């Protein structure tokens, strides 16, 4: 962190004339411009915040991103549709299964591929397991940002580890799963794996209870999180915020419900909403979402049918994905990722490579609201607010 004192008139002017100084005070104070990051443990990756402080209060905050830019979209336009699949793993590297899901869904929409029943169920199971992984770690890291250094994270990672073992068993890799294929899956899940998932689903509520005893009523957590970084409902909608961040602000919008993609409309689950939209609500919405995910998992495990794991239409392309040429057209497919609406927009010109490929990354769009939430808060709270958005820089910068 580098610090530099100056009066920074220009920055002050652009920050919507936010006035925090005590008008009665006659003491002339200076504002302080601080670079938080790009190499800073609280920024969750290579991300920089240009903060202007008046005392300890944030008067302006400009997120600076792009340090991890890998040209994902352009790369995808230069290779076959299937070859982008492993690249999507690397967007939000915590949730590769959901990223795969989004991309598979988009191309299936584009080429009108019907997906076998069993595949849909396995996909839902994997996506919900991913949500568990993401939310426990997000909460763990949020607590890290609060100063509870690594105790909650390790509780979270203990559970995450069990789920990653499942991912490794089915897909071959813990994080870079590359498990979904257009119209199907890489390989079937064995009964033994389903049994293990069942074991996890049965034990997870006990862990959540433990986690909640550790955190939910903890006075320090409450004092640090309640009424901090409030995101008003209207602002959240106007800034097209999605995911737990939006639902914590009380907007009932969950793509699993709205679109009912895959087989989500067959399952009973609720959409938890927060009353206020502060950091605490974001924490608690995530806990509740995990409980709902467990319900979905339970139903999916009960209902999973036997059957094919590849659509008939796509069988010829299993061995040669390079020859898959969707018809001319465009498609936008979206899934409710753990961080928000993950969308893929693709335009096909009938060749084996997409003509245009675009990712709507929830982390990136949710990050745009950071300044509005931080203005007027203490610097230490700005760190917590950033943690509560739950970003992954792999997805922000792409």
């Amino acid at each position, binding site marked *: 962190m580098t610090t530099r004192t100056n009066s920074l008139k220009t920055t002050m002017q652009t920050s919507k004339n936010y006035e925090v100084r005590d008008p009665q005070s006659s003491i002339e104070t200076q504002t302080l411009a601080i670079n938080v990051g790009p190499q800073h443990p609280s920024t969750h990756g290579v991300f920089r915040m240009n903060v202007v402080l008046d005392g300890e209060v944030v008067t302006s905050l400009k997120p600076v991103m792009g340090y991890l830019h890998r040209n994902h979209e352009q790369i995808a336009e230069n290779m076959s549709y299937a070859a982008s699949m492993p690249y999507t793993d690397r967007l939000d590297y915590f949730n590769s299964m959901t990223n795969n899901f989004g991309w598979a869904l988009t191309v299936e929409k584009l080429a009108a591929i019907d997906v076998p029943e069993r595949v849909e169920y396995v996909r839902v199971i994997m996506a919900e397991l991913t949500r568990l992984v993401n939310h426990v770690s997000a909460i763990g890291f949020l607590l890290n940002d609060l100063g509870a250094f690594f105790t909650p994270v390790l509780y979270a990672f203990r559970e995450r580890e069990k789920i990653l073992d499942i991912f490794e068993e089915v897909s071959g890799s813990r994080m870079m799963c590359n498990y979904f294929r257009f119209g199907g899956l890489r390989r079937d899940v064995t009964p033994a794996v389903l049994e293990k998932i069942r074991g996890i689903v049965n034990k997870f509520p006990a862990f959540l209870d433990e986690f909640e005893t550790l955190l939910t*009523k903890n006075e320090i957590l*409450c004092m640090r999180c309640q009424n901090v970084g409030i995101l008003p409902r209207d602002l959240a909608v106007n800034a097209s915020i999605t995911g737990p961040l939006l639902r914590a602000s009380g907007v009932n919008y969950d793509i699993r419900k709205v679109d009912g993609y895959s087989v989500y409309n067959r399952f009973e689950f609720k959409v938890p909403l927060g009353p206020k939209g502060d950091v605490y609500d974001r924490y608690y919405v995530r806990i509740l979402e995990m409980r709902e995910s467990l319900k979905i998992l339970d139903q999916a495990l009960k209902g999973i049918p036997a059957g094919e794991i590849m659509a008939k239409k796509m069988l010829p392309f299993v*061995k040669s*994905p*390079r020859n898959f040429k969707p018809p001319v057209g465009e498609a936008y497919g979206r899934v409710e990722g753990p961080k928000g609406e993950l969308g893929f927009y693709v335009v096909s010109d009938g060749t084996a490579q997409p003509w245009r490929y675009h990712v709507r990354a929830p982390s990136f769009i949710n990050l745009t609201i950071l300044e509005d939430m931080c203005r007027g808060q203490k610097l230490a709270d700005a760190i917590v607010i950033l943690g509560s958005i739950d970003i992954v820089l792999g997805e922000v910068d792409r």
Partner: protein
Amino acid sequence: MFFGSGVIKGMLVTLKAFAASYFRGPDKGGIFTVQYPEQRLAEKENFRNFPFLVYDKTPDNLRCVACDICAKECPPKCITIVREFDKDNKPLKRPAVFSIDHTVCMNCGICEEACPFDAIFMDHNFEIASTDRQGDLLLQKEALLKSNDYFNKIRPTDASAIDAKRAEAEAKKKAAEQAAAAKAAAAAAAPKLAAAAADKPAVPTEPPKTV
């Protein structure tokens, strides 16, 4: 509840976990980490790391026919294949150069999926750290070759399925050859020729035509 009871309850959770780490098993709240490298977790069969080439019995018998399909499917294009030619400049069904750049490979497993000859598979060996980029991380054919026995050892389910499939294909081909030979023998009534034909070693099948 008095102020601070939440913190105290939380502390009790951590205290319980602390105690459990000494007396309980890993699945009951005890320590679940292992002391690598002395202790190791069992490898998952489907675990994939970097690809290797399979050979049957001896390293000359590699299954790869240098069809270049895997190199074309590979997303970051880290496979380089050069076909071998014989003295008369006739292309042979084997690679002269087959290299995989481990610094580029993203362990996606697409090469394994795409190979029509069951020649390339994902390995389990992850201890490949090196300071030599060219020597140790740009792997040539010799370093990539591993026996079918090794493949059977690390991934028994997949390997046995593939062995069965190959044996079946082999048997079918043998039968077809024998039938053809018998036909030829019957037609020409030259038993010597037929015997020679039946002894002919099996050649790999042609790759499926892809456009």
